[in-house]
């Protein structure tokens, strides 16, 4: 299967598969003009992963999501939820800037109705 690589723009996030860990990253801000077109290759990639019954690990590190990408992301999570229900291995990490409480809430809200194993992790906190 080909690896996933969508470069970032000012208006869309960098989406890529980390070849070492197999984690699919979403990094940046999401304001795509056409969310379904933007997410289409990602959805296709997920479908083929599911067809191969391979594990799926997602990591989100988003500073902003517009409304239509939120909808597209919910559809993606619903797809993964169905896979998970059938025994597929799925995990999600939602990173948020420690000072951006709203992005933590967005992560909680997005994952709320799903049973996917998830982790919400603050970034940029002084330890």
């Amino acid at each position, binding site marked *: 299967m080909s690896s996933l690589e969508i470069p970032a723009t*000012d208006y869309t996030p960098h989406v890529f598969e980390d070849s070492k860990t197999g984690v699919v990253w979403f990094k940046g*801000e999401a*304001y795509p003009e056409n*969310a379904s077109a933007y997410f289409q290759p990602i959805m296709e990639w997920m479908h083929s992963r599911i067809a191969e019954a391979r594990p799926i690990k997602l990591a989100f590190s988003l500073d*902003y999501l*517009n409304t*239509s990408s939120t*909808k597209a992301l919910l559809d993606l999570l619903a797809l993964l939820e169905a896979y998970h229900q059938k025994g597929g291995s799925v995990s999600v990490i939602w990173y948020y800037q420690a000072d951006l409480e709203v992005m933590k809430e967005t992560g909680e809200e997005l994952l709320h109705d799903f049973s996917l194993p998830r982790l919400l992790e603050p970034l940029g906190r002084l330890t």
Partner: protein
Amino acid sequence: MQALFAKELSVLKEAEGAFARHPPPEELEHYCEMLAEHYRSMLAQMMKLTSISDATQLQLKRTKLELSSALSNVERLNRNLEAVSQEKDEILALAAHDLRSPLSGIRGLADLIAEESAPQPGEIHSYAEEIVNVADDTLEMIRDILDIYRLDGGAPGGQQSESIRIADLLTEASAISRANALRKRITMVIESVNADRSVLVEKALVVRILENLVSNALKYSPHGSIVTVRIDIEDNLLKIAVRDQGPGLSEADQAKLFKKFARLASRPTGGESSIGLGLAIVDRIVQHLGGRVWVETIPGEGATFRVELPVTAVG
């Protein structure tokens, strides 16, 4: 937007097709129709809401990008301005420095002429004295320019702290511009409640503060008025106050008082020259010494310049 809700739209279409092919029992028909209609209108609203909020969010994002690009433009401009300003300061300091030697030469020779011509006072003698006065004023300006340049560069000269009596500081203060005070018949009043005590200070810098505040007060005082200099020590603070009976300062003047080359509405009362560096120098020295300086004034009723410096009392 249709594509984003493709799944929901096709569910609706399928359901409607199924209802058409297999009409539900009569008692449910109304509910099926109602459900489909509400689902359709809910979907339409959802698409509308999504596209409206997408557009708003995009506009915000664009504004944010424009703002950050404007900000970086301003920062670049600011850096350029700072570089230009520094270059200007350097040129000015260089010119001032180069002018000092020839001017000192002119002053020395004029002084010689004044001395030689003293036995027969006449035009030559008074011209020579005038040259000496003008050269003195100009040399003072040059000293100010070089000082402010050095102070802005952050190096006030690495002075050593030394012990000095308040009374000696007051003597220095009264000696400053004595000629100017006499010429304008200004009475200098010197006060202190603890003249006998001593403090540990960078003496040259404190004297410079006094010099500038006193000569400033004399410069803007009317003929025959009173200038009061008061130095006290209180709770490890050296408190200096220089009060004049001049025109006072408007609010606009107070705002730019301590800036370099400040052009104020007030004019010297005896034809003295001013390039607006004296108070800027005081401000920088006070900052260097960790103190504060401010002015209390009522327009028309004079001004009191106050300085507070943290010091160590030694007796």
